[in-house]
């Protein structure tokens, strides 16, 4: 009797914790940038503004990183300058108005002296994603430039713009040259800006290449964890509310499975068998399922719990594999599309089998 009461109390606490977490996250997201915001005209819209890192930029950058699957914070488009005074002879670095990108640039050039930043309106999206969707293009660049008089932009004939290398799926070099602009292909990563800017004259970074190494993958771990946690907590909430009608206990510990997947997948990515993101998810799910079978063999879980957990693991691992295509720097559009067609129905099937198992058999807490 006492054990049953204790178990019910525990379930109630878990339910409350999930709801509180999700509500707090939603409240935080109310402070985020709104898609399609039209920036209000300022009196000094035609004058460059100073820019620098403030203490709250570090907090905003952390939130941007942590919740990067959601549009977070954006900066007002325009021409900005670092240092104490505006200098029209300093280089102009073009970038998106995604806060984390600007933070990264300002952080890496903080010791280099004065620079100018041309922040264009990419609707709060990073350079690469915006360029692919046509939101980092010649039109956006020219729209910001035309706000300023030519002698404000440059003391020479042409305006020299240093463009991020990942912007060229949206930016056309030849068309910029027709607008009396001297475009230079800058580095891919902000961390390479100090090296690039220290060598004059500035040269196109043609050999710069995207790197999907361990450091890059580790960087994607936290946002992946939060995304997975948020989605699976909502799923668990549904299952827990179903508890009222189905009289089954939902193991709160199940949320650890997608968290394990979200941690292991990026870290072990090159070593997981399979060439596709979703098939790597299946392999990782199978590996974790082998662990669950071992637990069953040792008597820790029943056969119905094992069945449910395996379906849940495989569904979550395929889901994470497909989601990771948005996180990776190497996802090919045609291949991912084929993966979605092939594996998304399989994922839905596994989640459905989870529900069937729940309804058909009681799952122990």
């Amino acid at each position, binding site marked *: 009797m006492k054990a049953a009461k204790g178990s019910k109390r525990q379930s109630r606490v878990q339910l409350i914790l999930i709801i509180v977490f999700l509500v707090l996250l939603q409240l935080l997201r109310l402070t985020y940038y709104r898609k399609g915001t039209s920036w209000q005209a300022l009196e000094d819209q035609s004058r460059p503004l100073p820019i620098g890192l403030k203490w709250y930029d570090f907090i905003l950058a952390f939130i941007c990183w942590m919740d990067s699957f959601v549009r977070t914070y954006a900066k007002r488009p325009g021409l900005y300058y670092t240092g104490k005074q505006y200098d029209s002879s300093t280089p102009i670095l073009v970038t998106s108005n995604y806060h984390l990108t600007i933070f990264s640039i300002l952080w890496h050039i903080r010791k280099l002296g004065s620079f100018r930043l041309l922040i264009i309106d990419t609707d709060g999206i990073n350079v690469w*994603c915006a360029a692919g969707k046509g939101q980092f293009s010649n039109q956006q660049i020219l729209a910001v430039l035309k706000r300023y008089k030519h002698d404000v932009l440059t003391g020479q004939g042409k305006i020299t713009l240093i463009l991020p290398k990942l912007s060229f799926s949206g930016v056309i070099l030849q068309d910029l040259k027709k607008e009396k602009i001297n475009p230079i292909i800058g580095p891919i990563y902000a961390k390479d800006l100090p090296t690039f800017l220290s060598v004059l004259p500035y040269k196109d970074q043609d050999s710069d290449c995207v790197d999907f190494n361990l450091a890059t993958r580790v960087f994607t771990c936290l946002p992946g964890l939060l995304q997975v946690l948020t989605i699976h907590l909502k799923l668990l909430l549904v299952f827990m509310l179903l508890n009222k009608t189905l009289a089954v206990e939902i193991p709160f510990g199940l949320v650890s499975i997608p968290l394990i997947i979200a941690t292991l997948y990026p870290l072990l990515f090159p070593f997981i068998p399979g060439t596709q993101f979703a098939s790597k998810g299946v392999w990782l799910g199978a590996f974790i399922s082998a662990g669950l079978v071992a637990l069953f063999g040792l008597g820790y879980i029943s056969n119905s719990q094992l069945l449910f957990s395996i379906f849940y693991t495989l569904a979550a691992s395929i889901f994470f594999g497909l989601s990771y295509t*948005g996180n990776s720097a190497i996802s090919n559009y045609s291949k991912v599309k084929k993966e979605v067609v092939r594996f998304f129905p399989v994922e839905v099937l596994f989640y459905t089998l989870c529900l069937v198992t729940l309804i058909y058999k009681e799952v122990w807490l």
Partner: protein
Amino acid sequence: MIEIDQTKCIGCIVCTKVCPHQVLAMKNHKAEIINPDKCIECDACGLNCSSNAIKVTKGTGCFWLIVKQDILKRPGSCC
């Protein structure tokens, strides 16, 4: 999918400069695909090719965007 029509290629090397994965290289003053498996179909090369020698199936390899645009047929970005 990426294809180069070498009869149209003028050897300006812009495509090799803008590619983020070094998929292309110059050989005998013509652009050639050397790492096809690394191509992510971003179309930086095709967009910047002044002689229209490069054809790419342009797209973004993001699951959420593919579901939103190609399956649900809703415009806009993935996030």
